[in-house]
C-alpha cells in the first residue's frame, strides 16, 4: 500500500468522466433512493421515539408528538452511568492504543534490528485473530487477574491494536528521511525524534484511527457483555440490551428513544465533523 502524495487540490480541471445531464440525474436519483433506504432504520427510530406507543406501528402523519419516551427511557435504567462508563472506556482504549501503537510502529518503521520482521508478522496475526474470537480464553485470563466486572477488563484485549500499528507504520515510513537525520544531527534521542518529527506529521492518521477506534468501541457488545456484571462497569451497548430484553415484550417507543439517546453523541459528532472525517481518511492515505 502506498501513501497519498499531497492533499488533493480542489480540481480546477474537470473530470472527463463526471456524469452530466441525464446521466447525472439518473445517478443522483439512484443514490438518493439508496440513501433513503439506508437511513430508514434511523428514521423509524426517530418516528417511534417521538410518538406515543400506539403509533409505533401506525404511520399516521398527524400523530401527537411526545418526549415521554425519552423520560421513561432515562428513568428506566442508569444511562448517565452507562454514558460515563462508555466514555471512560473508549478514552482509555484510544489513549493506550495510540501510545502502544506509536512506539511499536516507530520501531518497525525506522529501526533496523534483529527479529523485526518476525515481530511484524506476529503483530499482523492479530489482524485476523481478533479478540472477539478469543472470548473464552481471555475471559479466563481476566478472571485469574481478578479484573472481571471492571472497565479495564473490557479494554485490555484491545489496547494493542495491530490495525493501529500497521497504519502508523505506513505513515511513519513516508516521513522523509532527511527530517529524521536533521533531528538526529541536532542531537535528539530516538524518542525525541519520534515526538518532534514523526508524531506531528502523522496527525491525519491519528485522527482517522481515533475516529475508527472510538466508533468501534462505543458500539462493541459481545465482549463487554461477558466481562461486565454490574452497572458500575457496564457500557451503553450492554446497558441498552439489558434494558430492552424484557420478558414483557418489546416496547419500541422506549427502546428507540433509548437507542437515540445512546447513539446521539456519535451521531452528532459525525454530523458536525463528517467532512473532516472523510478528509482525514484521505490524508492518512488509508488505501
Amino acid at each position, binding site marked *: 500500500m502506498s501513501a497519498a502524495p499531497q492533499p488533493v487540490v480542489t480540481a480546477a480541471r474537470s473530470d472527463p468522466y463526471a456524469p452530466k445531464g441525464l446521466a447525472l440525474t439518473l445517478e443522483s436519483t439512484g443514490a438518493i433512493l439508496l440513501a433513503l433506504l439506508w437511513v430508514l432504520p434511523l428514521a423509524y427510530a426517530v418516528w417511534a421515539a417521538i410518538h406515543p406507543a400506539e403509533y409505533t406501528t401506525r404511520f399516521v402523519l398527524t400523530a401527537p408528538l411526545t418526549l415521554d419516551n425519552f423520560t421513561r427511557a432515562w428513568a428506566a435504567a442508569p444511562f*448517565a452511568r452507562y454514558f460515563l462508563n462508555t466514555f471512560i472506556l473508549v478514552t482509555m482504549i484510544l489513549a493506550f492504543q495510540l501510545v502502544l501503537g506509536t512506539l511499536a510502529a516507530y520501531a518497525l518503521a525506522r529501526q533496523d534490528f534483529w527479529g523485526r520482521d518476525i515481530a511484524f508478522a506476529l503483530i499482523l496475526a492479530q489482524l485476523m485473530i481478533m479478540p472477539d474470537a478469543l472470548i473464552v480464553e481471555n*475471559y479466563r485470563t481476566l478472571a485469574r487477574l481478578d479484573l472481571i466486572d471492571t472497565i479495564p477488563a473490557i479494554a485490555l484485549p484491545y489496547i494493542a491494536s495491530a490495525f493501529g500499528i500497521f497504519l502508523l507504520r505506513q505513515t511513519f515510513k513516508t516521513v522523509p528521511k532527511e527530517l529524521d537525520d536533521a533531528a538526529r544531527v541536532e542531537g535528539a534521542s530516538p524518542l525525541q525524534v519520534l515526538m518532534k518529527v514523526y508524531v506531528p506529521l502523522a496527525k491525519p492518521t491519528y485522527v482517522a484511527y481515533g475516529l475508527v477506534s472510538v466508533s468501534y468501541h462505543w458500539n462493541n457488545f459481545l465482549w463487554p457483555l461477558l466481562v461486565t*456484571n454490574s452497572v458500575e462497569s457496564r457500557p451503553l451497548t450492554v446497558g441498552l440490551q439489558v434494558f430492552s430484553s424484557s420478558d*414483557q415484550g418489546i416496547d419500541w417507543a422506549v427502546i428507540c428513544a433509548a437507542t437515540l439517546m445512546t447513539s446521539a453523541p456519535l451521531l452528532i459528532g459525525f454530523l458536525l465533523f463528517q467532512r473532516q472525517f472523510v478528509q482525514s481518511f484521505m490524508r492518512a492515505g488509508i488505501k
Partner: protein
Amino acid sequence: MDRRDVLSGAAALAGSLALPGLARSQAATEVSFFYPVAVGGPITKLIDTYAADFEKENPAIKLKPIYAGTYQETIVKALTAHKSGTPPVTSVLLSTDMFTLIDEDAIVPFDSFVKTEDDKKWLASFFPAFMENSQTGGKTWGIPFQRSTVVLYWNKELFKEAGLDPEKPPTSWAEQLEFAQKLTKKDASGNVTQWGIQIPSSGFPYWLFQGLSTQAGAILANAAGNTTNYADPAVVEALQYWVDLAQKHKVHPPGIVEWGTTPKDFFEKKVAMMWTTTGNLTNVRSNAKFPFGVAMLPAGKRRGSPTGGGNFYLSKKATPAQQEAAFKFIRWITTPERAAQWGIDTGYVAVSPAAYETAAMKTYAAGFPPALVARDQLPHAVAELSTHENQRVTKALNDGLQAALTGTKTPQKALEDAQAEAERILKPYR
C-alpha cells in the same frame, strides 16, 4: 441525579482502576443480589424501595440490588461471577437453574437457616407447585419469589364480532381450535389479517409447550432431573396439536412466533387469543384498548401449565454472616403482605396462599378478577422442565420444537431427535 452519578462514577473509576479488590470490603454486612427484570420499567424502583425499607428495619445490613437483565443473562452473570470468585450473596434466578447451580457447587440449601418454629411455618407456607422446582434430594435450594404460570388472554371485542360469547373462554383443546377458526379473518387476497390464536415459540418454546404436554397428560422430566421424556406419545400428540393449529387448520401464524412481539400483536388486534405469562398482566391491562379476559389454559386430557419465574438462591461462596443477612431479607420480602404487594405491582403470582388472603390483595382482586386466574390454575400446575445441564437439555427440546413448527421435521422425528440428544447429555448423571 447527574452529579451524584458523575461523582460516584469517578469514585468507582478510581476504585476500578486502582484497587479492584478493595472496593468490595464493607463495614456493615453487605448483601449484593442479582435480580432479573422480566417485566420492565418501574421494577427497578420497586426493588430499590424494598431494599431501602429493609435497611431501615435492619441497619446492620446493607443491600445492594443489581439489575442484571433477563433470566438467561442473570444466570450467566451469576455463574461468571461465581467462577471468577466474587458472586453476589443472593440472586433471583430461574427455578429451573437449580440443578445447574448445584452441579457448579454455587449454592447452599436453606434448611440450615430454618431454625425457629416460625421459620418452619414460613418454609411450608408456599404454594406446593412452586416448591416442586425448589426442592430436590430432600433439601430446599430455592425460595419462590417472582413466579408465574402460562395463561390465555382473549380479546372480548373480537369474540363478540365473531359471534362467540365474550365472557366464555375456550375450556378444551377442541373449543380452542373451534374458537380460533371462527376468529381467524382473511382479507381479499387471502392474507390473514387476524389470527385466532398464537403461542410464542422463539427463545424458549419449551415453556409454552409444557402447557400442551401437561394437558396431554405427560411429564417431560423426572424429579431427580436426570431423565427426560420427550418422545412419549402424549408429548408427540401435544406437539402435533400445536403444529396442526398452524399448518393444518391455519388459525395460528406459521413459523416461529416471536415472544417479544406477541403482546404487541394482541394490542394491534392481529391475534384474538394469546398464550403468554401471567407476568404480562399489568402490561396488557395498560396497553390493551379493548376489554380482554384472562383464563386458565384449556384442558386436553386435563388442565395444566408449567410454573415459571424465579427463586432466591443463596451463594455458597458468601460468608456465613452474609448468608444469614440474605436469609433475613428473603424471609422479609416473602411475608404475605409483601408477596401480595409484589404480585399486585408486577403481575407475578403471589407466592403463598396467605398472600391472597391479605386485605390489599383481596381489594385488588375484587377490582380486577383476572389477577386470580393464575392462582386458580396452580392446582393444575406442574414443575417447569428442569434437569442437570439444563440449558443444553432444554435447547435440545427447543430446537426440536422449532424444527417441527417450521415444518422441517415431523413432530415425531423432532421429538425423537431431541430425546436422543437429551439422553446423550444426561447419561453421565445417572
